[in-house]
């Protein structure tokens, strides 16, 4: 077999058993890997409560991982989110995926709950559960240090151990499996960490064809101003977007009360580079190296993080933003949800957190004490319990990232339809509404957006299953990645075939959600966006979103997806018809 290893490692934390199984080839062909494979493997358990011991926590790589396919040293982590209640996946880079594939695995499937803290060690063909009593309670850096020499590490910090609903699983290299609280699922199982250490090579079916496809991808990367342009993400990381979002008047500020923060230049890409002597860093073998770190290898914050610990909380001090980022990483918490929850807390009490308050609040959240006990449940539960539900800027309980939907109507629709809640990455319309890739669309128009969002959701579901980085698609397309995949696996995949696979994955996720009670009522934006304008200026008018037009487009989306008017499935046997 080329590309895939065909193997899954099943780990039962309750019994302490680990064993390898063969994955049916048909499933690999139909779901690729990563998100798609993980979602398929959830089929028998998607109704379980996220914290049920039998709820699986799945790590899955893709067929391109282990090759020199650009940006493909990634994996997906899949389970059900304790924050949103939806099916959940998160794509993550670093070295873990590559090392895991090197152990001859396409997936690790973890169920059960250990009585005592353990870590899973996978070393080549061997897998075992080891006591982790000494690691429990430790922060991420110390945990990684104590596991040094055992390969690449994925671990939870205090937030995951204590059940913070937006706890991350952190990779040893500083990457994170973020947003939906899968760190709480892992911590709830008594699993402190996973180490993987393999170097087995991945066989490529057609090496010459692969090299040509790789050259095509790299040529498109070089032709993309967003990727390799002198102002692009390879130079400045995602904070390259700070100035752009300010100029476009769509930087969420003060819990989305406004869309422009006058001091955002303090934490722009150039400001971070200057202040912290930012160096290029990134995932294994990735040519883009969009992550930025200090000369001491301390990861520097992404765009979402600087905006949310900045404008969203009215903070302009770069050093405090960087400290908050580092603290979240160390405690194992999602920066977007943490900052957005603090922002809702700030609006509720009539005062956003002062710079000096932030670290203490973050500790309180991670250790679930004092104010942090309620804040650890995320902004929705916090706002509901304070009888101010309108202050939670979430969709399906997931805190919205740093693109105000009043400034990009495709983004508004995509937040609503996202299967994992208020996420920018499912359809990623910022790519065309703001960054003009592959072609520009009118950001203040809903025209055509229902179809565009549907197509993009399908494309990105395939991308997350290859697994490749979405940033690659600021330059390349499924045409080139389909060619890479065909060359690696020896199975022909064109863009249209990949979109069909993506559609299958997307609908499967939606079906799981609908079976768990999700419907039109959950595909909604916070009311603020329909009643309050953004911050107009510089010749840009940012009115409230027209609710009627939004709902009309949402219904179009349902029709295109073949769903009922309430967003559910007409066909209860949908899953039975899927491979």
């Amino acid at each position, binding site marked *: 077999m080329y590309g895939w290893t065909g193997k899954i490692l099943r780990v039962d934390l309750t019994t302490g058993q680990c064993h390898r199984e063969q994955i049916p080839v048909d499933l690999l062909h139909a779901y690729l890997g990563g998100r798609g494979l993980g979602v398929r493997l959830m089929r028998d358990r998607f109704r379980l409560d996220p914290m049920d011991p039998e709820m699986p926590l799945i790590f899955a790589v893709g067929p391109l991982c282990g090759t020199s396919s650009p940006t493909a040293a990634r994996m997906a982590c899949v389970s059900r989110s304790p924050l949103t209640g939806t099916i959940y996946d998160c794509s993550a880079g670093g070295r873990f995926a590559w090392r895991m594939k090197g152990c001859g695995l396409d997936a690790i499937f973890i169920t059960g709950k250990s009585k005592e803290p353990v870590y899973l060690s996978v070393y080549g063909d061997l897998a075992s559960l080891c006591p982790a009593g000494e690691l429990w309670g430790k922060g991420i850096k110390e945990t990684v240090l104590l596991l040094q020499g055992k390969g690449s590490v994925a671990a939870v910090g205090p937030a995951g151990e204590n059940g913070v609903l937006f706890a991350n699983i952190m990779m040893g290299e500083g990457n994170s499996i973020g947003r939906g609280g899968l760190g709480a699922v892992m911590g709830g199982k008594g699993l402190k960490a996973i180490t993987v250490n393999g170097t087995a090579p991945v066989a490529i079916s057609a090496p010459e064809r692969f090299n040509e496809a790789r050259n095509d991808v790299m040529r498109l990367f*070089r032709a993309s101003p967003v990727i390799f342009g002198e102002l692009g993400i390879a130079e400045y990381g995602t904070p390259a977007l700070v*100035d752009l979002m300010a100029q476009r008047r769509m930087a969420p500020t003060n819990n989305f009360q406004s869309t422009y923060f006058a001091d955002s230049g303090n934490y722009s890409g150039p400001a971070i580079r200057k202040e912290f002597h930012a160096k290029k860093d990134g995932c294994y073998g990735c040519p883009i190296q969009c992550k930025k770190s200090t000369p001491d290898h301390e990861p520097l914050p992404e765009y979402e993080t600087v905006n949310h610990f900045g404008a969203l909380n009215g903070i302009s001090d770069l050093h405090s933003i960087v400290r908050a980022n580092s603290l979240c990483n160390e405690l194992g918490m999602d920066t977007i949800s943490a900052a957005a929850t603090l922002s809702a807390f700030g609006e509720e009490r009539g005062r956003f957190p002062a710079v000096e308050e932030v670290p203490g609040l973050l500790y309180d959240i991670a250790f679930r004490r004092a104010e942090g006990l309620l804040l650890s449940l995320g902004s929705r539960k916090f706002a509901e319990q304070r009888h101010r539900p309108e202050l939670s800027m979430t969709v399906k309980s997931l805190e919205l990232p740093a693109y105000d939907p009043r400034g990009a109507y495709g983004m508004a629709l995509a937040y609503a339809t996202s299967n994992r809640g208020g996420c920018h990455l499912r359809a990623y319309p910022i790519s065309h509404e703001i960054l003009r890739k592959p072609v520009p669309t009118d950001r203040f128009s809903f025209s*055509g957006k229902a179809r565009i969002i549907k*197509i993009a959701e399908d494309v990105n579901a395939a991308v997350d299953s290859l697994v490749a980085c979405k940033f690659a698609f600021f330059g390349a397309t499924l045409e080139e990645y389909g060619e890479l995949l065909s060359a690696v696996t020896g199975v022909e995949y*064109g863009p249209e075939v990949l979109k069909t696979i993506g559609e299958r994955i997307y609908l499967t996720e939606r079906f799981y959600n609908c079976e768990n009670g999700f419907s039109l009522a959950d595909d909604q934006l916070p009311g603020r966006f329909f009643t309050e304008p953004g911050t107009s200026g510089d010749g840009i008018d940012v009115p409230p979103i027209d609710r009627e037009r939004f709902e009309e487009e949402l219904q179009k989306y349902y029709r295109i997806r073949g769903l009922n008017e309430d967003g559910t499935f007409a066909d209860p046997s949908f899953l039975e018809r899927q491979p």
Partner: protein
Amino acid sequence: MKDQIAKYTSKLVSDRSAMPERIAIAAQDDVLLTAGADDLAALAGAILSKLNSLALVVARPSLPFAEFLIGRASADESCILPQDTETRTFLHDIPFLRREELAADPSAQIARLLGSRKGVIVEGVGIVAVGAITVEQAYINYSSVFHSTFVKYLQDLLAEGFRLPGEQESFDSFRNEWLRPLSAEGLEFREELSGHRDDILNEIERVGRYTVERGLVDSFFGNISVQAGGVIYISQTAASLDELAGCIDPVPTGNTSTTGITASSELLAHRKIFEETGATVILHGHPKFAVIMSMLCETSGCTITDCWKDCPHVRTLGGTPVVAGEIGAGGLAKRVPPVIGRTGSAIVYGHGVFTIGEGFRDAFAAMVDVENFCRSEFFRRLDFPAPIS
């Protein structure tokens, strides 16, 4: 979406890339819309309904070059390999279907090919191009295939001459009737740019429009900039040269802001050219004859195979330097700035032309001159081929 269909139908007519009565566009949101020639509209709708994409253009090109390329291809060939850098980078290859291969309803065959590529050529039908997310994208892909087949056919003619019945007559018609004289005559330019933002933006918009209206370039192929007061004003990536209003980024020369992340992929080349030459304006386009002639290299015994990116030599065409270099962060930004100052223009192998000036009058005239020279040189070589030694 209907307005988009009307807009790009009109563009296909005004840019003279399609026969006005043989154009159809299909687009789908929650319903499928089609417009244009009845038979082509039905075909466009049938193809698009088989694709997970938003729009599709089916049109018969105004020139028969794509079909001639099919006719000249050997029986075992099934696609055309573009030679110019731009389309090579974005299209990779262009599949074609011969007339005898077509089923009674060819929509499934065409959709299958479009499942892997942005555009295809269907003998007897025309160019079929898909837009994944917009009608504009389908139009761009149609334009790219038209551009690519134009360049490839004329290149092949120089190398091999006429081979098909009726080919020469069609070509003569193209030469004598389709081609129009290129000139800057009658155009108004600001002699001096004031340094005021609005004046600069207006002048960029106007000159961008000129390049398309005069037939110098196709609307999506090129970029344009002005340097003034520590700022480079440059057209955005994927901006249409004849519709630049709101699509020009002000980029501080010191990179103190990253708002220019949406600027043209050639921003680096523009910046280096400004630094190297002290020019005030830069115009970059892909005039077809310059693209064709730039790829005509008569060096014998050369071992370089990927000339378009690896050739280190500076050749000349009518005195204008020709250099190799990939677009964006590839080699173009390194190789153009050192050579463009001497003559005010430079050609990039298989890609296009850069010209500079104190104002756009100079830059525009220089681009017209380069293209006119290349056009006449092309026909001179076609009329008087060098004897085979």
